[in-house]
């Protein structure tokens, strides 16, 4: 059974159609890797999937329900790590994690997350003093500190050193073994075991803009633009 799927997704950014007619569906334990050149819409797609923005057309389903129908449930089943790290410079590493886990209803294991990302020794250091890769690890630790079946990761390996990349790969593997789903975008080969790879740029519509050559008609009026 498909746990997470999307149908005929169209993304419009500033009146330009970035991609259209994108379908996906993943089951428990699956991994989906989004690739494509810069600007092809990987981040935009992940933001649609996470419910941060709404698709211009099409819909996304989580466990048989549209994600707009019961957003609270969907949001508590999902972790999103975007380009930006959501790290508060003034707070210590641990305080950052405590805050983010308080936003979620499930119990969380912060020490475990710190160990998994190799940040345990830095727990009480202000985040301002972290290097670029350490900051990125803190963002990943946020995800590892509380369980959720769906992980949406936007270029998770950026700025990580090789040891940390290995650790992340191990975390993804064990997450999938437990029935978790991972959808990640990347520009470097991620080498996720038997992950399905999709090149999002094949769904681009050259020269298609919302107001040119009747795209608005084509999308139809019953689908929200």
């Amino acid at each position: 059974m498909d746990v997470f799927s999307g149908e005929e997704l169209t993304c419009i950014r500033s009146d330009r159609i970035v991609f259209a007619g994108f379908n996906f569906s993943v089951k428990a334990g699956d991994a989906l890797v989004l690739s494509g050149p810069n600007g092809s819409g990987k981040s935009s797609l992940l933001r649609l999937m996470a419910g941060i923005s709404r698709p211009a057309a099409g819909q996304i389903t989580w466990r048989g329900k549209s994600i707009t129908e019961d957003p609270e449930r969907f949001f508590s089943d999902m972790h999103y790590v975007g380009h930006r790290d959501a790290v508060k410079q003034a707070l210590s590493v641990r305080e950052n994690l405590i805050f983010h886990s308080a936003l979620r209803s499930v119990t969380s294991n912060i020490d475990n997350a710190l160990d998994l990302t190799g940040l345990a020794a830095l727990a009480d250091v202000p985040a301002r003093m972290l290097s670029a890769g350490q900051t990125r690890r803190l963002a990943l630790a946020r995800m590892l500190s509380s369980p959720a079946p769906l992980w949406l990761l936007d270029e998770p390996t950026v700025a990580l050193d090789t040891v940390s990349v290995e650790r992340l790969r191990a975390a993804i593997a064990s997450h999938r073994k437990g029935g978790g789903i991972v959808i990640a975008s990347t520009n470097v080969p991620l080498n996720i075991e038997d992950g399905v790879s999709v090149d999002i740029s094949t769904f681009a519509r050259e020269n298609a803009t919302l107001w040119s050559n009747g795209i608005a008609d084509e999308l139809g009026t019953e689908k929200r633009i």
Partner: protein
Amino acid sequence: MLQKYANPKRFLTLANSVLPWTTCATVILIVAGLYFAFAASPPDYQQGQTVRIMYVHVPSAWMAMFAYAFIVVASAVGLIWKHPVAHVGALAAAPIGACFTLICLATGSLWGKPMWGTWWVWDARLTSVLILFFLYLGFIALANAFDDSSRGEKASAILALIGGINLPIIKFSVDWWNTLHQPASVSKIDMPSIHSSMLTPLLLMGIGFTALFVTLVIIRVRAELASRRINALRAAKIHAEVAGG
């Protein structure tokens, strides 16, 4: 010469040998000053007993300015020669200077009530002392506003240098503008125009306050250096763990 004492270790050795002397000087001078001020000097023929406020007011006004001048010099040394201890010294002196300024303001307005009939007037000298007080507060707040202490001490050092213009304004405001406040009579360049029975306690208190200032600064610098050493050791331990695991 300066270079030598900029080093935390050498500074501490020097400070520890000086401290007992300044402590003794403080106690002796202030006790003597208070005796002359309250027992051995006459009331003023115009101002009566209230003149005794002067023995606290004037030395603390001097110290308010002296402490700020000290901060300016220490900041300049810290910025130009990059001596870490100079910055620590400036930070240590700031709260002490702020206290002297507050005492000057408080005793001044206590004195102002019987003399001028009001607690406060917006005259040039009074206003510039108030600004000096705000500068102290700004200096302290700025120095403590950064996670990285070295950032804070450098930023506040720049503030101190630029705020330094206020010092000549305070000093000469009574000469430049016609104000209610008394022009300088003790600290005039040529000869003091004040009777020696009043001058003695005034000078005793002045030197005593200076010794007090030096003592307090040394104590505070020592404490600050110790706490930095502890923090530094803690940070080093953390990062050794990071590198190791």
